[in-house]
């Protein structure tokens, strides 16, 4: 998590004064499962990119290159939708279950 502001530094009334600030929020910290991308198995169908609710599939020159782990919430939709055989995205447990 990025360093949190004190009450003197937060914008007045909770308003957001900077456009596009959602990008600064590390929703990736909410994850318990992490996507593992296997480039060899990927058929570049871009289905994962279409379905990802957080725009967390990284694309370069029209090809998938990886996942934005700063924002990925680990929902697993990409792994679920991947049609490749063998599958190109699997979900791995990132944190230990609580005792």
């Amino acid at each position, binding site marked *: 998590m990025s360093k*949190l*502001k*004190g*009450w*003197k530094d*937060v914008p*007045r*009334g*909770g*308003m*957001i*004064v900077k*456009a596009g600030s959602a990008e600064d929020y590390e929703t990736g910290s909410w994850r318990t499962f992490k996507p593992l991308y296997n480039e060899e198995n990927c058929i570049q169908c871009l289905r994962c990119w279409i379905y990802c609710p957080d725009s967390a599939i990284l694309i370069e020159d029209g090809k998938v290159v990886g996942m934005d782990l700063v924002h990925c919430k680990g929902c697993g939709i990409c792994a679920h939708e991947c049609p490749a055989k063998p599958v190109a995205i699997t979900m791995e447990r990132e944190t230990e279950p609580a005792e």
Partner: protein
Amino acid sequence: MATKTKAKKKIKEVEGIRTALNGNDSVAEALRQIDPDVVAAYPITPQTELMHKFADFVSNGQVITKFVLVESEHSAMSCVIRASAAGCRCATATSANGLALMWEMVYIAASLRLPIVMAVVNRALSGPINIHCDHSDSMGARDSGWIQLFSENCQEAYDNTIQAVRIAENPNVLLPVMVTLDGFILSHTTEVLETLPDEAVKEFIGEYEPDYYLLNPDHPITVGPLDLPDYYFEHKRQQVEAMEAAPAVITEVAAQFEQLTGRHYEFIERYRMDDAKVAVVVLGSTAGTAKAVVDMLRDEGEPVGMIKMRMFRPFPVDEMVDALSGLDAVAVFDKSASFGAMGGPVYLEILAALRGKEIPMTSCIYGLGGRDMTPGLFRPVFEDLLAGNVEPRVRYVGVRE
């Protein structure tokens, strides 16, 4: 509390216009001169005629105000919140259950730090349904984050409304302001008052120049986003700070208003308190009655006085403690009950303000649902105070046993 400054000559910058208006028309007149950008309101007795009058001004073209007819008070407050966030100077008015209906939005207006001015024509909260004056409505909103100014008479209702705009819009404050006036007792009663010329009001309040507003394409903002447990507390602490900055601003605005009109305003008014041994604390129009009773008792040689609260939110701790120090007994009059609490709202706040200082005090709940508070009802309370009797802790003045 238009007290005359006896010692020095009144320096009036502007010649006032002596007129006779009822409370609703007094506030409507102030609003006409303020000429807000947006007003959204819904009728409720006894506020209705206030907005009727203002609506006349709108349809006559006497104001530039966009008057939005909404389907409820909740919508009225929602509408002015959005207009204010968009960059408009806004106002509205309501009473009792109308205020209650906009309850969630009232909190939101304050937390979004919007300088909305609202006249609350005090009326009892239902049930049973009662359209007459008590303070349960505005007392019910005392935690909402609004600044609250109570008016004793039509002059004060007019003056407070004009000052409210400056107080609310001050960059150190940026909080909505509730100006109260007693339902029927003030709203529907014609009194003599002095209004200001239009130009004087216009100049006094100035232009509304918000730093952040929605209708600014050069600097887009989001108003009212989500907070999680990691930030809500900081935003509320910031809101507390704004309320703490308010007294200084209220004083400054009052000083400038005094230069303009010669009328002096403070957080509280001390009436014949200099050598008083006992006193009553009152809010609103009851202060008028209390002053008459104090005068009567003083003629009989009794050392009595009255403290009237003009500013209830923020609570003027220092002034109140100072005014009450050294008194033998005090009765705090509340025109509302707080069921399950150990006394009325004003009584409890004063008790907290005194914080351990031993001043015998009794809580007098009175006037609920417009039950008349007469000099005859004040007298026995003063007599008890003079006899040093503050029991029981809570008494209900004027109820039939």
